[in-house]
């Protein structure tokens, strides 16, 4: 089940990457890494990591709640 979910994550990630790429192409623009200085680069990296953690915790929280409920049910059945 988890494997399927990971596969799906990969596919949706690729699709979104393609959407972003095609949008940039449509506008005839390329993202220019040289416009970002090293300080900003570090800051952006931290921000993205933090946001990713927050987003992951949100999805994990919901799935953990589900698992806990299932565990509790199993225990009561035993």
């Amino acid at each position: 089940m988890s494997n399927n979910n990971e596969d799906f994550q990969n596919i949706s990630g690729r699709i979104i990457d393609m959407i972003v790429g095609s949008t940039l192409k449509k506008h005839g623009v390329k993202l220019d890494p040289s416009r970002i200085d090293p300080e900003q680069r570090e800051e952006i990296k931290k921000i993205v990591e933090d946001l990713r953690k927050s987003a992951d915790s949100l999805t994990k929280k919901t799935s953990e709640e589900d698992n806990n409920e299932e565990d509790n049910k199993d225990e009561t059945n035993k």
Partner: protein
Amino acid sequence: MGMSSYDKKRLLMLERRNDERCQDQEPVTCEDKCDHSCDHHCGDHCNVCDQGPQQWNALDPTMDFPFGNSIDQDAEAELKNVQKSFESIVIKDSCDVDVRTTDTQLAVNIQVAIQVAIALIISISIADSERANSITQDIEAQLKSAQVNKQQTYIENSRNVTVATDDSDVAVNVQVAIQVLIALVVRLGIL
């Protein structure tokens, strides 16, 4: 279709008003005031002649639609991520009821933060700010999603009940937004 008595009265009143006006003033034609020809008399409104503000009349084909013929949405096209969660929990004649719901507000806050980060990265890495704006709008518009989540729970005459409701839709949207952000960051070689 016959006229109702109300309509007749109204028509009579209007005619009387026009008659009174005609007695007061000399009949004027619009040709006196401007170069187009029309049949307006007795100080009636002429759309072209009258410079003052007028109320828009839907039945008058000569009047321009207040918003113009085309609505220019481009400037205001922004991310329309419609997420509505309607959750109602009714507990009636019950005791020892434990209710747990997901914090939708937290998810929405995270999503907004991600969207702002996307806009920030695009605006930093593209010199032309107008173009950066339109790219941001474009990317976000393609990912717009409408989700309406309705949950209704009704508990009546119960004891020792635990209710846990989840709003997984919001979590999915957050995941999509973070993937866009990561796609951008990877392109910039930051991650």
